[in-house]
């Protein structure tokens, strides 16, 4: 699992710890608590699992065991632009696997991983529920239907260009101001 938390994450972890008080010390609350932690931190770092296990007075291994059982929980920080590739049946039949491969090749990471600069992460998901648009990929919060390998390049390029433009605007602002 990961190592150091960023300052913002430390802040969020404190926030999480203070919120735990509102949950009764019942085993049934374990999953709702983990869901709350992931909403705040966008993943479950080791430190957070420790906090949860202390609150509910159950072993860390037990908390980890439950968390790893379910697909919802992540143990790596997601990238700034999370990419989710749908691999539901309809998307699979229409070539979702090829789209996933293209993202992996372009970004040089596998699904479940984050690029070293924490810009992108790739996940595969089972059915986002717009099978009529298959194959589908979700970047940030936007759903892109009828994906094709060349569209993958286009979408990534657009993010790069936007980033560059922001950077330029920032430099311009700074030099003007």
């Amino acid at each position, binding site marked *: 699992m990961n190592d150091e938390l960023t300052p913002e994450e430390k802040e969020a972890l404190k926030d999480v710890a203070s919120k735990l008080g509102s949950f009764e010390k019942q085993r049934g609350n374990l999953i709702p608590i983990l869901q709350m932690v992931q909403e705040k931190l966008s993943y479950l770092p080791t430190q957070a699992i420790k906090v949860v296990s202390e609150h509910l007075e159950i072993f860390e291994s037990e908390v980890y065991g439950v968390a790893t059982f379910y697909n919802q929980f992540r143990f790596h920080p997601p990238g700034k632009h999370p990419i989710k590739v749908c691999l539901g049946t309809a998307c699979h039949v229409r070539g979702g696997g090829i789209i996933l491969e293209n993202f992996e090749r372009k970004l040089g990471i596998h699904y479940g991983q984050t690029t070293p600069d924490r810009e992108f992460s790739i996940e595969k998901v089972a059915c986002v529920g717009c099978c009529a648009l298959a194959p589908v990929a979700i970047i940030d919060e936007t759903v892109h239907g009828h994906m094709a*390998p060349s569209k993958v390049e286009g979408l990534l390029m657009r993010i790069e260009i936007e980033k560059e433009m922001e950077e330029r605007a920032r430099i311009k602002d700074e030099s003007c101001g």
Partner: protein
Amino acid sequence: MNPAGNEKIDQRFNAIYKEAEKRRNEFRDAPVPKIHIGMATCGIASGALETKKAFEEALDEYNIEARIHTVGCLGHCYAEPVVVIDHPDSGFPPIFYHEVNAGKAKMLTKLFLKEGDPRFEHVYGAMEENDLIPWVMEFARFNREKRVVMEKCGYIDPEDIYDYIAAGGYSTLVKALKLSPDEIIKEVQNSGLRGRGGAGFPTGRKWELAKNTGEQEKIVICNADEGDPGAYMDRTILESNPHQVIEGMAICAYAVGAKKAIIYVRAEYPLAVTIVTKAIRQARELGLLGESVLGSSFDLEIDVFRGSGAFVCGEETALIRSIEGYRGMPRHRPPYPVQKGLWNKPTVINNVKTLASVPPILDHGADWYREIGTQNTPGTAIFSVVGNVVHAGLVEIPMGVSLRTLIFDICGGIPNNKKFKAVQIGGPSGGCLNEDFLDTPIDFDSLTEAGAMMGSGGMVVMDEDTCMVEVSRYFLDFTQNESCGKCTFCRIGTYHLLKILERLTRGEGEDGDIELLETLSKDIKAGSLCGLGKTAPNPVLTSIKYFREEYEAHIYEKRCPALMCRPMIAFYFDLDLCARGCDACATACPVEAVFTTSNRKKGVDQELCVKCGECMVVCPPEYDAVRKVSPPHLVPHIEKPPEKKKED
């Protein structure tokens, strides 16, 4: 219930209904156009939010007064975003427009709402019968359906409880509260309603068992943990008409004597979670839930539990473990959950569709319900028909309709002049059926007999370009991932099934593999505890049974007949067709495997090619020069010119 109490319930509900009616009439009679926009997840994914914004901006810009009414999903996913415009002053009936993007929204506001021209080229149909525009009910996609569960989906605003009440909602709960629990259970039993979660257990029987346990405290759970990739009807119902499910839950809780109910929704459905939570709050505010419902002696609290995404949690004992805060692993039955369920209390677990069927049944009576569908399985079935089919989406049909009617008449058949090959029913637990089964009537028993399963109702239509071995591999990959690991046969057996199938799709199959797959499948079925393991080999068994020649081609000829398994195919350009100077394929190729030959035509560097097929998609149809072959060694050799120096 005593007559005085009944009167009190009626009084309370009539006050609420009057308010709902007032609001509805005010909306209906307002002398302005109404724009109904479908805003469930599928609509939003296709851009309904942008459409709504465009309408708002355009109405502002042209200074038109109109009401925007956000509704749920009609089930016509192929047509999303769907907009119905009711503009009485124009003289036209309400008109159904499909694929309304932001530009179309702006155009319609200007030309239809302002100038009164409905733009016939964009009209899909009219929502009422008239002389001018074809009525949608004249189309097979609409009139062959029979809507019981989804009757109000797409017509009412899911976030407004009054919309549901004005459409007749919650009146059945009022009716139920005046009956005795036994009368309700009897009516449900008479209707022949069977659980829509997949197994088809009689619902009335389940309720009776729960009612007759001696325990005081009982729990009702609505199972909306829809894990099958390719099925999304539960989500659509919760997003489009959550109150019908809540009403069904309340009736169930009253009948079995429960005071607590839980809706178990997947966390992957954020919109459904939000809408259901809001719906419960609204119902509580009006006194339709909470302490002494509508002034009666019946109390009910409904909570939402967000499932964290594990396919096995669709199994009821695993679902219970998961609510209790453990890994969702199934346990032995008996004791059944109706005897010892959540926190060891008797628990009734019903699927979303089952519970949503209850209000219409009590409303119209058991005999009405029995007339729909077949003798053994009355009622309707909801399918999400996706894959290679023209009018993909949700279809609610009476049980007993044939697959041919469903796929070809209602859903418009296979696109691009391709041939029908197979239909996969029931997701990872179901099976693949070939065209011999197209005339099979759909119900629980006939599908099980054919080796498939009703399951969740996911239906994926496949055309001739789909490889059945690859599809089996896909499903096994899924079930292997989702196997909880409790039973050895499921955990290790599915792993080996997957490994064999992976070998086949790589072209490394051996003699005897088919027999090995068959015996292993039978062992997994026999040795697994829960439905996941018992049904996981179904896709393999059915595809071997109905498409054995494909398996044989993979093993003995190292050939993929559908040209889908990528290690077994190769791409090349037909040099007689390839156009000089066209660079479409070379530009599109993600790995720069396309090179230009000495006579300026194209060739594929087989070493670099990842076989994504993009060149085939972009090759202009007038050339249509890209070809696939299997096995790959059949590819003609095309000389690659020596690389030039870049400095030249």
